[in-house]
């Protein structure tokens, strides 16, 4: 079966709309992806048919909602190849997932211990750890980046030692699209006895990671990056680690027994799922993963690689355009500037032409500091984008640059 782009686009109602009287060209997929009708239907069906609070409800609606919520957990477990469903925690997204681990890990760390971050991180994989270091007295070390926008793996090897407790890196850089060599990073960290958290927010729309094969200790995902709704995500943690970490939030759902003298905590995964969760979101997350699998990650990777190559070649025709992030292994993301034109100016004019890109520092200021730029224009593609849309962006960009020069 081929890749039927027309049929795929028909799944996404939003792609039919216009912006500023032009057909929408949506190239901000790394910020959030669009939602197919199949997922929208699941969201509607939830509220129309079985909206109820889950777990411990004896009535039918509660049981139906619980079954579907837990079935979504099972879908995630199978998709990411976690060993057990109890290693798959629902969170509100990657930021929540990282904060949960950073909070718990703080209690396992002592003054003088070291943790390692990479220069390519999103602020959400930097700040929670800085907060943890302030609380625990641990030292934060940084894997430097290269001009190509890749990690300096020799420097990484030198940073690792017997004091290293934890390494946290993204699978794919949100600002540049670089796919980091996480297999190597995990192996080397484990060799000195350190755990690894991988922020998979930007990888999962493009790559299907096998968590057991990776042997990663923690892995985070945001549903809205892969055709699901916002406000829901996943934290994978190896069972042994999740048992070691203290709970992050207290409340209902996460307890076994409560008295005013002492409360005991529920078993995994509920120990980390205090309060009523985003039930509909969790179910829709499962539906989104099913949808992506119905397209097929191999098909997606192949098609997006074509888009990336086509767009890279087309953009290079524009005088003075520089692409940031030239790793041979990258996802369909192009971060660029034209001469010294401010990215904001380009983004504003492209929007007038119906083309949605992101401009600014992309919550990755250390990368912008490295290149000494205020930010970039970032076009990020999804499997529902087309070469015709890339043509529209390139001609829009030429027009914008002409106005701004």
């Amino acid at each position: 079966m081929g890749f039927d782009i027309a049929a795929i686009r028909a799944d996404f109602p939003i792609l039919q709309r216009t912006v500023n009287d032009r057909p929408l060209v949506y190239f901000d997929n790394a910020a959030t992806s669009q939602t197919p009708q199949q997922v929208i239907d699941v969201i509607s069906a939830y509220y129309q048919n079985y909206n109820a609070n889950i777990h411990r409800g004896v009535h039918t609606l509660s049981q139906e909602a619980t079954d579907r919520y837990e079935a979504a957990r099972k879908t995630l477990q199978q998709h990411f190849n976690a060993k057990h469903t109890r290693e798959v925690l629902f969170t509100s997204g990657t930021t929540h997932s990282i904060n949960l681990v950073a909070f718990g890990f703080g209690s396992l760390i002592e003054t003088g211990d070291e943790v390692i971050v990479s220069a390519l991180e999103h602020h959400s994989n930097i700040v929670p750890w800085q907060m943890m270091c302030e609380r625990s007295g641990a030292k934060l070390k940084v894997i430097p980046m290269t001009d190509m926008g890749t990690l300096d793996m020799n420097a990484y090897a030198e940073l690792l030692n017997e004091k290293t407790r934890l390494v946290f890196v993204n699978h794919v850089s949100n600002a540049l699209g670089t796919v980091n060599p996480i297999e190597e990073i995990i192996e080397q960290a484990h060799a000195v006895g350190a755990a690894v958290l991988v922020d998979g927010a930007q990888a999962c729309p493009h790559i299907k990671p096998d968590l057991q094969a990776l042997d990663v200790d923690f892995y985070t995902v945001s549903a809205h990056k892969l055709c699901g709704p916002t406000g829901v995500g996943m934290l994978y943690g190896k069972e042994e680690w999740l048992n070691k970490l203290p709970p992050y939030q207290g409340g209902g759902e996460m307890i076994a027994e409560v008295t005013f003298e002492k409360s005991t905590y529920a078993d995994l995964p509920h120990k980390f799922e205090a309060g009523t969760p985003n039930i509909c979101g969790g179910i829709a997350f499962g539906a989104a993963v099913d949808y992506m699998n119905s397209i097929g990650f191999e098909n997606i990777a192949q098609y997006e690689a074509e888009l990336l190559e086509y767009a890279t070649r087309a953009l290079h025709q524009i005088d003075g355009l520089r692409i940031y992030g030239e790793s041979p292994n990258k996802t369909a993301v192009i971060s660029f500037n034209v001469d010294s034109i401010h990215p904001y100016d380009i983004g504003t004019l492209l929007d007038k032409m119906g083309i949605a890109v992101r401009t600014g520092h992309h919550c990755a200021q250390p990368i912008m500091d490295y290149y000494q730029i205020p930010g970039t224009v970032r076009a990020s593609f999804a499997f529902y984008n087309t070469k015709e849309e890339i043509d529209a962006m390139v001609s829009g960009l030429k027009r914008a640059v002409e106005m701004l020069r």
Partner: protein
Amino acid sequence: MSIEKTQAEIVEEFSLFDDWMQRYEYMIDLGKSLPLIDPMYKTEDHIIKGCQSKVWVHADMEDEKVKFTADSDAIITKGIIAILIRAFSNHSPQEILNADTSFIDQIGLKEHLSPTRANGLVSMIKQIKLYALAYQTQMN
């Protein structure tokens, strides 16, 4: 010329354009005529927060009138601040404080007025009014 009159003049100029492109081209031109801030004031204290691009604004008092100078690293932002300065510069603090800002809607820049917009038009207007307030307090 009063602030209202200058604003009416700007609205009139923008009404001559048929499409967004001409409007933005004009704004880019206006940006080039912006009374530039003395480089010594291009400091962290003079940066307006809430803008994706950097915007610096400074105000001096001459003959009981506030004179604004500014700069930005983005051209469209320079155009927006140039429009504001043209409307508000060279007036007494009280006149600036009393002035209405709805002319922004009428020149098709309404989309920039939302506080979530990265260019921080709202912050710029607030900063201009704050300068006026500070000078008025000094005068009293």
